[in-house]
């Protein structure tokens, strides 16, 4: 049994779970994909930087209709992680507008993807309410929500 693999290469698994971005050495713009050059300044030198693992939901949708094979409903969101925007699903929260709110505070967590034919497990990520269980986010002072 081999070690689990991350769903994407910018996810760092283990005890110190976090996301890593490619930061432009010239202008500081951050990207999650493999780069040819910087979209902001065209610089070609990048360094890996750790992205904050806690953040605030700045946009979300509850997807009820997706491509075949994708389980619905799920909550897709953009999370502001201390100035770096991250795309991810919101997890450990009921997928309804009563529980998911703009401005809610969330934290990076792992999500199982599955095990392949070789017995290797893949692990993805999502963001869950900061203080744990379902619905807990609504008790937080969520500025900018409904």
């Amino acid at each position, binding site marked *: 049994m081999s070690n689990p693999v991350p769903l994407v290469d910018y996810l760092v698994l283990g005890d110190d779970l976090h996301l890593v971005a490619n930061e432009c050495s010239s202008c500081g713009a951050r990207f*999650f994909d493999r780069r040819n050059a910087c979209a902001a300044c065209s610089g070609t030198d990048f360094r890996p930087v750790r992205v904050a693992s806690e953040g605030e939901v700045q946009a979300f949708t509850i997807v009820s209709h997706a491509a075949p094979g994708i389980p619905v409903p799920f909550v897709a969101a953009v999370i502001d992680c201390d100035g770096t925007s991250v795309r991810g699903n919101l997890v450990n929260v009921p997928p309804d507008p009563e529980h998911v709110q703009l401005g809610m505070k969330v934290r990076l967590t792992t999500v199982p993807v599955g095990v392949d034919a070789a017995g290797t497990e893949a692990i993805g990520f999502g963001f869950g309410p900061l203080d744990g269980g379902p619905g807990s986010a609504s008790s937080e002072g969520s500025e900018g929500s409904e």
Partner: protein
Amino acid sequence: MAGDASTGDVWILGIHMTKFGKHPDLDTVDLAAEAALAALADAQVSMRDIGVLAAGNLMAANAGIGQQLQKQIGQTGIPVYNVANACATGATALRTAIMAVKAGECDLGLAVGVEKLAGAGLLGAGGRPKADAETWTPRGRYGAVAPVDGRIGTETMPGVFAQIGMQYLHEHPYDGVDQELFARISEKNHSHSTLNPLAAYTKKMSLDEIMGDVMIAYPNTRPMCSANCDGAAAAVVVSGERLKTMAPDQRRRAVKVSASVLTTDPWEEACQVLPNVNTLTRNAARQAYEQAGIGPEDLDLVELHDCFATAELVHYDNLMLCDEGEAVPFFESGATWRDGSTPVNVSGGLQSKGHPIAATGIANIWEICHHLRGEAGDRQIDGANVGLAHVIGLGSACGVHILERAA
């Protein structure tokens, strides 16, 4: 008003849109030909007069729709530019023809956009099952070992634009119910379409019907999403200099292109995480107002890219129809209904008129021209002199055209 034709100007001489909806018996070329021939007839010119053809058909972007069209309506040997720019394809075709005329390469150009999209279903998700591979192997620019749609956010258009609308409400907090606000925008456009015989859907829908319909991606239910349908639109453009030599009736019905702008999204934090449709629209609008020498307060009507109800709201702000951050109170004032101060999407918009992708960026010009010519029948905005047409193609491209009635 636009005054008389002069050197350096470009005008719409003729324009047409087909009925939007289901055309099971017409193929892509049939629809393009119908629109092109009718635009030529409207302009009172023939294919022999045209010096450049720009054509778009996004779903078959490699098929050379321009040459296919020529083979049905006139192979005159002129240059053809087949263009593809997502949902801005039609506006890009029009702008290509305008640029050729502006550059002095020819006096008359033809732009065509056509799409067969009825029954296409969910766009942006590939439309087919995304199976995991046998073994986890990192692929692509994110080194993903499995498809990420649904695992890391959503790639579907309704979901992407839902987030764009919700992001606006995060930045500009709203006291009411999110979904009801957006549904009321949809209610307006479905109501407007009852006066448009060329719209794919012409049925008025109540707020309850809209909110109670099938949920696609909160807050967008099905009627709050653009309607996939078949359709085509075409426009003939002419130089001001050539127009001066034309018949009085052609000059009277010609519509001045006071601004023609195409922008892409400049880099900003987050723009590769969630597409930013705001800055490029604001940039295009600013350039267009400057080119035309008019402001948003001068607009008699606007056709903007309401691919989803959530998108329409943000573009009130982006096109500067309201003060910055004031899109919600602007909408709630009734300003964007057809009897309001800035009627928006009196055609019914993409949600009700329909969105045959490559046709959309010319069809919205047709709608504006129809009003500026005083030919819009039951849905005529009285005394319309100036209008603006806007499209967004995700990726992104933004087209803005400002049109003015002839003197």
